[in-house]
């Protein structure tokens, strides 16, 4: 069947609309603030034969861009091999096994078969981040776990809903193994209802245009997305483009982990070869295959945001060389850092490899960490335990069009930070500052964005602080002779004595009492282009606004300012200084 471009465009918009409505329904009805507020969820439509991504909601969390097709593919394969019971109308499978197309255990996937005239036509699936799935620490991010069993309850694909009815026995087992179980029924209902809504909308779309037309359109859209991605790929010079990105440590062994990437263009295809990356690690900074693939896809989508999310867009992208590395961890390696941290370092490797090839498209490295600081303790005034999360942003990389954004959210996320006032309402803490981290931006013709500098004091009761962050040892990479952004810094004051965690960006259960403090300075973004090429007026502006000191203007940017509050450029001295050889 040949389709006119209009019908094709209308069906594409229709499929997108189905997914966007699922996203909206899921967020609005969810209980978990991670889903409802931070949009840590995604909904999509996947092919019946192989799980290939047909369409996915535009507002889904970026890290899920490639995981759900992998998860659905594995489910289909397991059903074919008799490892999982075959689907019937009204069933919904639940799965959170990281090694079966997942991320970390907290990301729980639902998959619902979609039938037309009694035949399985496609799958509707969604992922939602549950606040807890059991394990050693509340929330699941243990910096010192050495096996997945310590991270929480692991579910293979099983039918939580059978012919439209929830299996109360399976649900009871889940509830007996997770914290704050009483509210999970709300998330389960919201997650299932979103898929039901998607089924209604997809049925309406297919009734309207006809099954044959929609089927033909799906195939054509996939082919066209591939064509579009290939056109972009042709803009990249042929040959090898290499980069290395470093993880500070795995949280258990204090050694950096390398991601070695060579991006190789052959014809219209792009191969991402990770050969030589670090072997699987003892601590939780392992990635699983689905997350590694998804990280490459999301990095490419950041570079080419105009290509629709579709299996076709991923077709020309091949990922190799991950076997035997920490980017393809196998059971029982711990994986809680994979979605939040390792994924961002993979994206950084992609950016760093491609920025010389696509200087107008790619930015210098962004802060690239979720900055997870968890505080668990007891509040004597309220007589109850609490777990507080402070996730933080950092500076983005400079780029051809300008400076990096300050305090942007993680590369793989899209969520808003909670207000200080809300945090202080909910937890026994007092913030002493929530400020722009001066001097943190990587210098460059277009400088990076600035990181965040916050400090928290414990007001009441005993507590334990844990950190799962990154970029504490190495700053986000500068590009095209730009400087790196400042690395993150964590300082903990116990009884007035400052200490820095041994792993810099990772630590588990540091005991704190009233009056003790934690200060976190998040990374600045990498600079783009040589700092001495920066317009002196813009350097002076940053000094006038107190973002850099006059000394930094001279040392980092070669700009000499006259004394006084106006921060005026001494042009002659600046020219002379910039012409002086420097290293």
């Amino acid at each position, binding site marked *: 069947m040949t389709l006119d471009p209009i019908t094709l465009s209308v069906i*594409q918009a229709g499929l997108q*609309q189905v997914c966007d409505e699922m996203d909206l329904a899921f967020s609005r*009805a*969810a209980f978990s603030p991670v889903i409802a507020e931070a949009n840590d969820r995604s909904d999509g439509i996947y092919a019946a034969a192989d799980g290939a991504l047909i369409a996915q909601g535009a507002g889904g969390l*970026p890290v899920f861009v490639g995981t759900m097709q992998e998860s659905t593919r594995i489910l289909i394969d397991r059903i074919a091999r008799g490892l999982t019971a075959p689907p019937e109308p009204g069933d919904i499978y639940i799965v959170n096994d990281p090694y079966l197309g997942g991320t970390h255990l907290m990301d729980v996937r639902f998959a619902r078969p979609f039938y037309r005239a009694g035949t399985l036509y496609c799958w509707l699936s969604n992922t939602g981040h549950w606040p807890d799935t059991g394990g050693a620490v509340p929330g699941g991010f243990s910096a010192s776990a050495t096996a997945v069993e310590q991270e929480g309850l692991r579910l293979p694909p099983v039918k939580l809903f059978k012919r439209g009815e929830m299996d109360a026995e399976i649900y009871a087992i889940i509830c007996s193994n997770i914290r704050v179980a009483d509210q999970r029924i709300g998330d389960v209902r919201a997650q299932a209802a979103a898929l039901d809504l998607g089924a209604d909308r997809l049925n309406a779309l297919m009734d309207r245009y006809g099954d044959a037309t929609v089927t033909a359109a799906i195939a054509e859209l996939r082919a066209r997305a591939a064509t579009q991605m290939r056109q972009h790929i042709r803009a990249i010079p042929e040959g090898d483009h290499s980069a290395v990105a470093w993880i500070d440590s795995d949280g258990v062994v204090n050694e950096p982990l390398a991601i070695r990437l060579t991006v190789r263009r052959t014809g219209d295809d792009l191969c991402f070869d990770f050969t030589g990356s670090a072997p699987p690690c003892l601590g939780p900074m392992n990635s699983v295959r689905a997350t590694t693939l998804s990280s490459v896809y999301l990095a490419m989508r950041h570079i080419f945001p105009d290509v629709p999310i579709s299996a076709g867009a991923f077709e020309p992208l091949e990922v190799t060389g991950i076997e035997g590395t920490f980017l393809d961890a196998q059971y029982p390696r711990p994986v809680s850092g994979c979605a939040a941290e390792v994924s961002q370092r993979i994206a950084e490797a992609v950016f760093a490899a491609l920025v010389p090839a696509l200087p107008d498209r790619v930015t210098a490295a962004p802060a690239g960490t979720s900055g997870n600081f968890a505080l668990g303790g007891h509040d004597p005034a309220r007589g109850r335990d609490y777990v507080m999360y402070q996730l933080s942003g950092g500076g983005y990389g400079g780029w051809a069009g*300008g400076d990096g954004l300050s305090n942007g959210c993680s590369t793989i996320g899209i969520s808003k930070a909670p*207000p200080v006032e809300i945090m202080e*309402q909910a937890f026994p803490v007092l913030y002493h*500052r929530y400020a*722009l981290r001066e001097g943190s931006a990587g210098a460059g013709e277009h400088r990076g964005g600035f990181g965040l500098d916050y400090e928290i004091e414990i007001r009441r009761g005993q507590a334990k602080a844990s950190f799962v962050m990154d970029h504490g040892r190495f700053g986000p990479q500068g590009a095209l002779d730009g400087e790196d952004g400042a690395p993150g810094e964590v300082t903990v004051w116990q009884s007035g004595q400052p200490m820095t965690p041994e792993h810099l960006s990772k630590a588990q259960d540091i005991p704190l009492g009233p009056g003790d403090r934690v200060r976190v300075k998040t990374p600045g973004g990498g600079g783009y282009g040589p700092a001495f090429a920066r317009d002196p007026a813009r350097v002076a502006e940053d000094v006038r606004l107190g973002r850099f000191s006059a000394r930094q203007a001279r040392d980092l940017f070669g700009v000499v300012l006259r004394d006084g509050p106006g921060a005026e450029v001494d042009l002659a001295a600046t020219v002379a200084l910039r012409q002086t050889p420097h290293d």
Partner: protein
Amino acid sequence: MAQDRSGIVAGIDVGGTFTDLVQLDRATGAVRLAKVATTPGNQAFGVMAALGAAGGDLAALDLIVHGTTTTTNAVLERKLSRTGLITTAGFRDVLELGRRTRPQAYGMTGQFTPVIPRDLRLEIPERMDAAGEVVIPLDEAALHAAARTLLDRGCEAVVVHFLHAYANPAHEIRAGEILAPLWPNDHVTLGHAILQESREFERGVTAAVNAAVQPILDRYLTRLRAELSAGGYRRDVLVMTGNGGMVSARQAAREAAKTVMSGPATGVMAAAYTGRVAGIENLITYDMGGTSTDVALIRGAEPAVSSEIEIEYAMPIHVPMVDVRTVGAGGGSIARVTAAGLLQVGPHSAGADPGPICYGRGGKEPTISDANLILGRLDPAKLPSTEVIAPAEVARRFAAPLGLDVTEAAQAVIRMANTHMAGAIRMVSLSLGADPRDFALFAFGGAGPLHAAALARELGVPRVLVPARPGITNAIGCVVADLRHDFVQTINTPVDALPPGRIAGICADHVAEGEALIAGEGVEIRARRHIHSVDMQFTGQTHLLRVPLESPEIDAPDLRARFEAAYFDRFRVRLSDIRAQVVNVNTSVVGVRPALDLSTLIDPAGRKPTLAAAQTGTRRVHFAQGWIETPVYWRDHLPLDAHLQGPAIVEQMDTTILIEPGDSARGDAHGNLILTIGGARP
């Protein structure tokens, strides 16, 4: 309270391009209309020109209600007055750090400029905690010093924004007392006075915007009142606010942030009024202009109001405002073929300059308006063209970049535009918890009535209401709007822990405060309405669901039952084991203004006795069925009770209404046309 002063009422709306006026004499029903060019430098000149064009004696006017974009433009173009911030030590960067976001999900780039630059944001020692207890006392000497520094640095306005001032405003109030004799003018904004809610970024930006537009609005209104007074006008001017109400000009500058989004709200108020009069109280308003389309929801003749509107990336203004959402498609939206060979309409727009190809101002890319022209829906003789381009030439230039036959290309562009807009409207209504099929479409703006029938069919909406004067809807909104004051009190209490009478007590306080404000405005009202609702959630959720209350006297089991019913209605989920919680208690106190007869907006004397007499001719128009020789009517000549069968085109001064084959239209007693959509999709 003054009685019956509003004999002759003038509504004047200043838009981006035109300043519109509608003047109604309630005694005689006489209507005067005027449309003049907006004068961007000083909008007062355009206002005076509109009054002049309408003729009549300013001294005879009883009330002028004014919608202004002075503050809107100031914010969107960042032409703000120099404003300083005095804030809690450690927190001056809150306005610059935002909520850790980026402008789009994909693409690691973005620009953000805070409302107040960093060198004008000063910190002083003081601190409250979340319970409103003093942690660090206010350092009054530091406050003095900060104020002097800001004055030295040339600030005209100042904001005092302290952490947790919503819980205990004592430090902000004391700072206000200290600043009063020190600051050379009235432009001192205290954060808690504008917004009494937690979230320091949103409250701070709202207060900063208020301060930064205050001197601008104040100067403008002072000039306008002087001009009006010189012209003989003796009354106060009322200014439209973003919640669809109005306040006296003397009060407007105090809470200037409330006027920032008043323009779109005004149109929605006109729609609500028109719908109430016409007996169609559930409406989706659809205002399609040159570059974008505004969409809002009206239930039971009440526009949906939100206190959480972000008017652009990282620019939240959290005061109650009519919830108007903007969709990036308008008549000037450009059609392009993407690299994947798919047709895409918008978000790029040709705007008014160069505009569509058919305007002859150098526009080269095909737009929605060009497609409408090619398909015979627009009359080439009525375009605002500078250079006339032959229709065949428009067609050639239009189709070339799209690689399709001309008619096919035009059809495709309209279809894509309608699919895109319908999808956006569906998302807006769903996000507000409404199924578009339960609503009628209220079509206005220059291009709205041209697309409304097709959109209604796409959305499954059964009816479309086209008001008498779609092109001056905002000015009409000024004359029909009510006095309105909105109140929100956050209580965050589980339903089963609510003391009896708690909600009723809060509502009573709201009503007393609102009544006092309305009495102070000195404007004639014919009735008072008190609208109560609660925002609820299941304990542990973050999103809220609004539950209307017919009466504030409600007991806990009833409240719980209503919430569960509303929740099931919305999400098809029952959660009977989880506690429900009341987060906010809301009251709107409305002073209902005297009713106005809208039927005279089209001069009754001009109406012809028969449909045939109102017909101006026929032209070939393209529909899904192909080219059809279609009758064309002049709106002002239609009999009041006209009944038209599609296909038909109705033209009027400021818009064109398309009635498609299978649809029909009927005039009502108020001068509206009600389209019935044949075969609207379920």
